[in-house]
């Protein structure tokens, strides 16, 4: 159980990452590729939070009541991930709006059939 306690978040993070990568590489539908991108990003967010996580740690607030020796969770990755989530959302929004435009031009989202620029 100790192994699971320590590594379960990493397993989850890389599970999500590789599911996302698989979806991006294998699927032919653009929407599914974008979903894969989101999954992959979620895996990375989870990885970041797992890096700073301590089992049974507390919130990193120093107050008079809590002794200084108490274990605290690292707050920096969480702050970073808030930024990264915002960036991820803006990429997602741009990707989906481009998908709409692509559908208006080609009447399909299957990337096998979109080859105007293929040489």
């Amino acid at each position: 159980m100790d192994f699971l306690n320590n590594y379960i978040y990493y397993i989850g993070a890389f599970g999500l990452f590789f599911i996302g990568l698989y979806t991006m590489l294998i699927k032919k539908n653009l929407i599914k590729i974008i979903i894969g991108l989101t999954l992959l990003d979620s895996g990375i967010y989870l990885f970041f939070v797992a890096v700073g996580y301590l089992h049974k740690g507390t919130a990193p607030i120093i107050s008079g009541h809590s002794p200084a020796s108490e274990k605290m969770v690292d707050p920096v990755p969480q702050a970073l991930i808030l930024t990264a989530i915002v960036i991820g959302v803006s990429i997602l929004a741009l990707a989906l709006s481009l998908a709409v435009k692509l559908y208006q031009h080609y009447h399909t989202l299957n990337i096998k059939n979109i080859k105007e620029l293929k040489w």
Partner: protein
Amino acid sequence: MVNPVLLIAVPLASAFLIPIAGLLSKKFEKIIPIAAMLFNFIISLMLVFPVLEKPVQVYIGGFSPPFCINLFAGPVAIFFSILISLVGLLISIYAASYIKKGATEKYHILYLLLLTGATGVVLTGDIFNLFVFFEILCISSYALVAYTNDKAGIEAAVKYLIQGALGSSLILLGIGFLYGKYGTLNMAHIAASINTITAASDFIPLVLLITGFGIEAAIFPLNAWLPDAHSSAPSTISAILSAIAIEVGLYAVLRIIFTLFGASSMLLFFTFLGLTTLLIGEMCAFTQTNIKRMLAYSSIGQIGLILFAFAMGTAHSITGGFFQLLSHTLGKALLFLSAGYMIYRSGSMHISSLQGQAQKMPYTAFAFTIGAFSLVGLPPFIGFPGKFMIIKAAMFKYEMLFTILAILVLTATIIEGVYFFKVVQALYFKGDDTATPKQRAPLIVLIPLFLFVLLIIGIGIYPKYIIKILNTTGKEFINRFDYIRGIIR
């Protein structure tokens, strides 16, 4: 002393000033980018001499590093900042008459954001901050590629976005690994802990970061998006992507290799990677019939050459790399801009449609010719000293291997010469000689072209001063410990 923060703050603020000022008059959207870039250019020039003596640092929030986000305006950062603001300024003057259709206001906002991101990437000393600025650069370039809103533009933007977003995710993962191991995000602080790469826990983030930034820099196996994106975007955007965006990606790659990891044991690998990129790029460019696609593939080749120069790792080759970077930025921006107006008039990107354009648009065709000759590396132009220094640096390695590599570089130059001369021949010596009415480009388009031509010839004839400054610039990449000591005291 000027504060380098202004280099980021002013374009960012003026980008969002555009829609507000647009309520008053439509003219502001064209003037604000020019004013912001002129301001950046002047500030960067004012910083040159202080920075050559001692790098200027800014601690955001007032804490000292590694606890704050720091801006490190060293010689490399100022070199790139001058290049970005100069090219950005000239292209925004050109765009004032070139961009007429569509959402022009949004074009100018995104254009300024792209330049803000590029300046931020080169100035920052914090790896997560670098990622954030890199995303500003990338997201605005995805949107700008789709600006034309036609079939090709949207398709190219989708391809670019999917590959670029995957690349940025890999960068983020690499940063996660680094933070997990070293518990800091300051690049100098991380670099202080890494001497040589032995452990897999250092190697994995190196590979992730190089792959992620390599996608934006279009290094060989990762360059699939570039020809589509550069050929489908409006010509001003092709110029800024080719002249600034991929160079900034390359800067990030070099910063990772030289400063962050000090990966001197892997430099030979990057030499080969650069050479492969060069050969593939030039050979693909040779077979193109679409002029903008040809220029895009030529950019891939040039990036390969620059990477090759830097990866040789000697003081001479790094100076040569910086010079070649300068020459490619000026030359390729000029080529895309002059080709852009000829395409605009003839209505087709096919090389055969450019036949006889020299009679119709003599100045634009002349500017294109100068740019082409400079990129090939003919003597009076800026391209010659760059290529000369790279070949010389390769020969001064006194190794059989590098002599062979130098021969391959020269072979690639010959291929480059052939396809550029083909276009120049079409411009001047083909097509009907009947006196066609002259359709000169407007003056506001000719001014930036003329300034580019002036710079290319001027620096080409007197490269000495620039080389002197670039020698100091190159030291920042070679003396990694000076960089670290400069930040962490």
